[in-house]
């Protein structure tokens, strides 16, 4: 939206119409002296946008001229849909209209809605009209001469700050929101604590307590009422039961039943006694009959036993005689078998003697051959044993291998030392040219180099001799020590030289080898020694000459085997016959014993039979017949009693029941009478206490208390919902508007103060401090100039925000910079110019000189 023109009529001092035309798109400045009507223009615009045309508020009435009239404001605005003319008239013939291109498009409430929509950033709020700053700082503190002037300036400054905070308030609901939220929270706090629990002593807690108490009362009273109801019910039952028990017919019936049951029980008991007596008699008769029957049976059994015993004894006696004959016959057959066994034994002994003698003759022949072989070996061994003594002596004398090796080592050492001495000694070499030869100690000197170790004389035939004396004696210590060691070793061995040692050592080794070969041979001849061999030879048996008829060993062996087999057969035959005879003897004994035993049994049976006496059967049979008849009679009598017997158990049960009925009725009577008294007491007491009424009353009160609790619960839910909704809306508004405003404010602040930030209170969202040079300066201590500059910049920031959202709205300042110094006002002008790009700003000021350099479109109030 962009303002194009403004026309006022009948508005405060402007009784006649005045206009402002040519309002540009950017910065516009209307500079005019005091009381020229600038603030009236401001108020007229405020009224057009914010006062309904039907309003008769104080603000609207303040617009009316002193002479009366209907204030009217008409403006032209450019909108995306074209140029519109908005007009409102108040108080007299109030109207609101909107024209587009000369055509009325809205009026009255529609026009109000249209105008209101222009001032809203979007559906959620954000009034563009808040960009306007009402005049207030026309009198600077210090500029005024009177205290009233200074107070006016202070009030204006406060108003300016109020309007600053008013922007934020409008965005977030501001102080109205704070008050509504505080009211909501205060009301909620009457019911619940900050943690949501019912507030102790509060209505909700009391309602809950009341419900709990009434619920408990109801439970208690219900229990008591239940007891009372049960008591009433029980009393009815008790009374009825008492009436039943004490009814004369009932009493008589119980007594009659008892008397009849007693009679029946007595009769049954008498019959039972008779029946018992009958049973005893029956039992006695049965016993007598059984005893006679048993005696007759015993007599019969004794007779049978005697007959059986006689037959058995006779058979056993015959069997014993037969066994005895068989035994005699077997023993007679045993004698020839004994003789045959003795002959077989003699033949076996003779055959065994021949076999032994034949074996001895054969062994004598083998011992003679062995003796001859051992004698030859003994003779050879004796010869070798004699030779071994000489070899053993030779093998024990002379140096052994170790001594020989030591002498050889010492000899080599001496030879080496000697060679070393000779190599360091003077040497003389003779070359004979003629036959004459130089001699040394008579021996011709060879033509090889000859070391001269000591003064030596050489004889030269024909020439004389010469003596060679070495300049100094050679060091022969080592050679002497080697030769001494060698000599000592030879001395220990008792030999003259090294060759003797080698020869002696060789002879000893040879003797040792021969001795070893001899010992091997001697071992093969007599492994255990010569003496043992000689003992073995001596132990061989001497040979004996066999008798002429002695058979050879095989024949003797065959004869011995045959004699053995014959003896075995004779022994078997004898043993078989003997066993048979023994068995027959045993059978004979057993038969004899059995015959004796049966004889004894026969005698016992005879004695038993004799004990019954003569004519026993003739006596017992009549007695048995009598006893049988008596038993039959007793049985018949008993059966008759049994058949006629009454049911004693049933009679006893009937009597017991009848008696228990009578006794029970008496007990019930006493108990019920006692219970009725107790119930009457209980009912009287509880009725007097009004339990039923209390219960009904408590139930009603509980229902009411529950309804109250539900109402309070609903109230708490409503307040919680309202508080949460208000907080959420405020947070949303803050997020939506406040942060973007800060973002827009930041570059504007830095036109004046590099790196400056404006701080806002997080809860109230009101500006609280300016952060400069790292320090927070509370807004209240800032100078008036700084405060008004902040106020103006906040509006510019808000305008930037709206413009950035594609909803540009004009900014209107009515003497908004009155405290600002020359340097700062230049910067503020810079800020205004920077903001005027794409943003309509209208500055109303009475400071004509100061604002001369602001630039922008110059506006004028025109009449007519």
């Amino acid at each position: 939206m962009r303002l194009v023109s403004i026309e006022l009529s009948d508005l405060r001092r402007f009784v006649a119409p005045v206009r402002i035309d040519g309002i540009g798109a950017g910065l516009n400045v209307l500079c005019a002296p005091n009381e020229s009507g600038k603030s009236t223009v401001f108020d007229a615009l405020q009224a057009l946008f914010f006062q309904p045309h039907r309003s008769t508020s104080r603000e609207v009435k303040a617009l009316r001229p002193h002479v009366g009239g209907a204030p009217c404001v008409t403006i032209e605005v450019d909108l995306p849909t074209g140029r519109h003319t908005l007009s409102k008239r108040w108080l007299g013939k109030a109207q609101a209209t909107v024209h587009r291109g000369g055509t009325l498009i809205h009026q009255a409430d529609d026009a109000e809605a249209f105008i209101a929509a222009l001032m809203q950033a979007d559906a959620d709020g954000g009034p563009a009209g808040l960009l306007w700053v009402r005049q207030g700082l026309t009198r600077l503190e210090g500029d005024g001469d009177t205290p009233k002037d200074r107070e006016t300036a202070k009030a204006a400054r406060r108003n300016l700050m109020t309007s600053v905070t008013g922007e934020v308030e409008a965005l977030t609901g501001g102080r109205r929101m704070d008050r509504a939220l505080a009211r909501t929270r205060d009301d909620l706090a009457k019911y619940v604590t900050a943690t949501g629990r019912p507030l102790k002593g509060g209505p909700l807690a009391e309602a809950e307590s009341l419900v709990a108490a009434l619920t408990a009362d109801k439970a208690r009273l219900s229990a008591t009422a239940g007891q009372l109801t049960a008591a009433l019910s029980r009393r009815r039952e008790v009374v009825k039961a008492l009436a039943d028990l004490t009814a004369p017919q009932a009493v008589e019936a119980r007594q009659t039943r008892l008397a009849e049951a007693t009679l029946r029980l007595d009769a049954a008991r008498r019959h039972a006694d008779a029946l018992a007596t009958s049973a005893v008699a029956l039992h006695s008769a049965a016993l007598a009959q059984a005893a006679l029957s048993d005696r007759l049976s015993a007599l019969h059994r004794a007779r049978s036993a005697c007959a059986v015993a006689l037959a058995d004894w006779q058979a056993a006696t015959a069997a014993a005689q037969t066994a005895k004959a068989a035994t005699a016959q077997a023993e007679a057959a045993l004698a020839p078998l004994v003789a045959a066994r003795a002959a077989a034994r003699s033949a076996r002994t003779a055959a065994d003697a021949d076999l032994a003698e034949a074996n001895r003759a054969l062994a004598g022949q083998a011992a003679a051959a062995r003796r001859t072989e051992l004698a030859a070996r003994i003779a050879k061994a004796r010869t070798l044993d004699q030779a071994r003594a000489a070899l053993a002596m030779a093998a024990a004398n002379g140096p052994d291998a170790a001594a020989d090796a030591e002498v050889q080592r010492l000899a080599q050492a001496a030879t080496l030392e000697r060679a070393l001495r000779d190599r360091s000694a003077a040497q003389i070499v003779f070359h004979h040219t003629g036959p004459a030869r130089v001699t040394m100690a008579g021996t011709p000197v060879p033509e090889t180099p000859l070391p001269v170790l000591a003064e030596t004389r050489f004889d030269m035939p024909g020439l004389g001799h010469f003596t060679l004396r070495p300049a100094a004696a050679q060091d022969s210590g080592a050679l002497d020590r080697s030769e001494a060691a060698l000599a000592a070793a030879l001395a220990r061995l008792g030999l003259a030289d090294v060759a003797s040692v080698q020869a002696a050592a060789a002879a000893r080794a040879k003797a040792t080898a021969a001795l070893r070969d001899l010992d091997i041979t001697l071992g093969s001849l007599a492994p255990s020694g010569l003496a043992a061999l000689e003992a073995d030879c001596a132990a061989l048996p001497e040979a004996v000459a066999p008798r002429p008829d002695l058979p050879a060993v095989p024949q003797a062996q065959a004869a011995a085997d045959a004699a053995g087999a014959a003896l075995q057969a004779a022994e078997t035959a004898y043993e078989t016959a003997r066993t048979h005879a023994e068995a027959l003897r045993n059978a004979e004994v057993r038969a004899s014993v059995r015959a004796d035993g049966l004889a004894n049994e026969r005698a016992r049976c005879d004695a038993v039979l004799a004990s019954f006496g003569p004519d026993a059967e003739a006596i017992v049979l009549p007695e048995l017949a009598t006893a049988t008849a008596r038993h039959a009679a007793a049985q018949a009598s008993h059966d008759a009693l049994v058949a006629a017997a009454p049911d004693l158990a049933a009679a006893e049960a009937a009597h017991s029941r009848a008696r228990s009925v009578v006794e029970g009725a008496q007990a019930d009577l006493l108990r019920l009478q006692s219970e009725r008294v107790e119930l009457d007491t209980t009912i009287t007491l509880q009725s007097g206490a009004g339990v039923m009424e209390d219960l009904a009353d408590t139930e009603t009160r509980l229902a009411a208390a529950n309804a109250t609790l539900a109402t309070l619960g609903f109230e708490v839910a409503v307040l919680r919902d309202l508080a949460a909704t208000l907080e959420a809306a405020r947070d949303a508004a803050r997020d939506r508007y406040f942060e973007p405003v800060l973002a827009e404010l930041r570059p504007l602040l830095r036109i004046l103060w590099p790196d400056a930030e404006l701080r806002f209170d997080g809860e109230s969202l009101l500006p609280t401090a300016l952060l400069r040079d790292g320090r927070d300066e509370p807004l209240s201590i800032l100078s008036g100039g700084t405060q008004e500059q902040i106020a103006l910049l906040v509006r510019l920031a808000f305008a930037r925000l709206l413009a950035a959202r594609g909803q540009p709205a004009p900014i209107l300042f009515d003497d908004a910079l009155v405290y600002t110094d020359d340097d700062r006002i230049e910067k503020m002008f810079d800020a205004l110019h920077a903001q005027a790009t794409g943003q309509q700003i209208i500055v109303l000021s009475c400071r004509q000189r100061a604002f001369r350099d602001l630039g922008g479109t110059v506006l004028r109030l025109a009449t007519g």
Partner: protein
Amino acid sequence: MPPFRFVHSADLHLGRRFGGYPEDLRGRLAEARHHSIASLAAAARSFQASHILLAGDVFDSETPTDPVWRQAVIAMAADPALHWWLLPGNHDSLAAEALWSRIRAEAGDNVHVLADTRPVEIETGVFLLPAPLPRRYPGRDLTAAMPESATPADALRIGLAHGSIQNFSEEGARAEDTIPPDRATLARLDYLALGDWHGHVRVGDKTCYPGTPERDGFTHSGRGGCLGVTLTAPGAVPLVEVIETGRFFWSDAPLALVPGQDAAAAFAALLPPDRAARRDHLTRIRATGRATLAEQAALSAAATDAAADFAYLALDLSALATEVEAADLDAIDRAGALRLAADRLRDRAADPALDGETRRVATAALNRLYGYLHEERA
């Protein structure tokens, strides 16, 4: 035979305590119930009747406190010219043996307890056929024996019973207990005096419920009363006259509202114009329909303002829907966070996807927000 005149009443429910009402009112209501005895006596005298038939539920329970039943009996005995015929009802059935035996023992000669179904000649040629309840739920129609109850041929037969006809019951009828509506005809009764239903109902020519002499709830509007009955001759249609006896006037009025209607004025129109009489009025007004936030605020304010005139005044807004208008929301705020909050509450209140309780809470919250800001402006 001269015309026989008597008063028919029932359901005094002496001893009822009215726990759901404010403490000071409860005493007044209980006292009014006791006073109904004197009112009935006065009604009988004015009706020139000497018999008062109480068709059950004289007492609210089977075990009333001693002061309740003693003072009742004393009040009945105050005028020995009046005969009180007490029929045990479901609240004070014959199961209350102790109660009735003590009343029989201590009441005067003019107080009669009808403890069995034998016809009683209460005046020459006038027979009472009682049907006392043996217990709270008898499980059968106790008037079934009336046709067989023998009386002289030219006698007046008056049935006295307590129970429901069809569904006329204060506590829900049981089919087995239901009294047939033509019982008076079947039993050759000249009048069937019933109790149980707390409002006056005439069932046919000869059968009536008198209602309580002192109303005890909003189910039946108006003041309590009794019936003055005149039997002119056997078989004739009785003359029945309603006699007002109650002190308190109970009313339960619906208040249907539409947006734009002056809710406060509509509410005021339902109130009795005689402000002095309001002290004995118990009034419940159930608002229905729709009203704007401003109208609801005005309605609540009117109710709060008038409540002090009444013994009891309740405004039930639970069935009143909120009509949210743009002007209401503008009154909260034209824009900004307050408006955002109001819009959100309005949206929740109208969101069919939300449960009823959530919507009801949101509606009330919106009302409350409007009220807070409205009070602030005021």
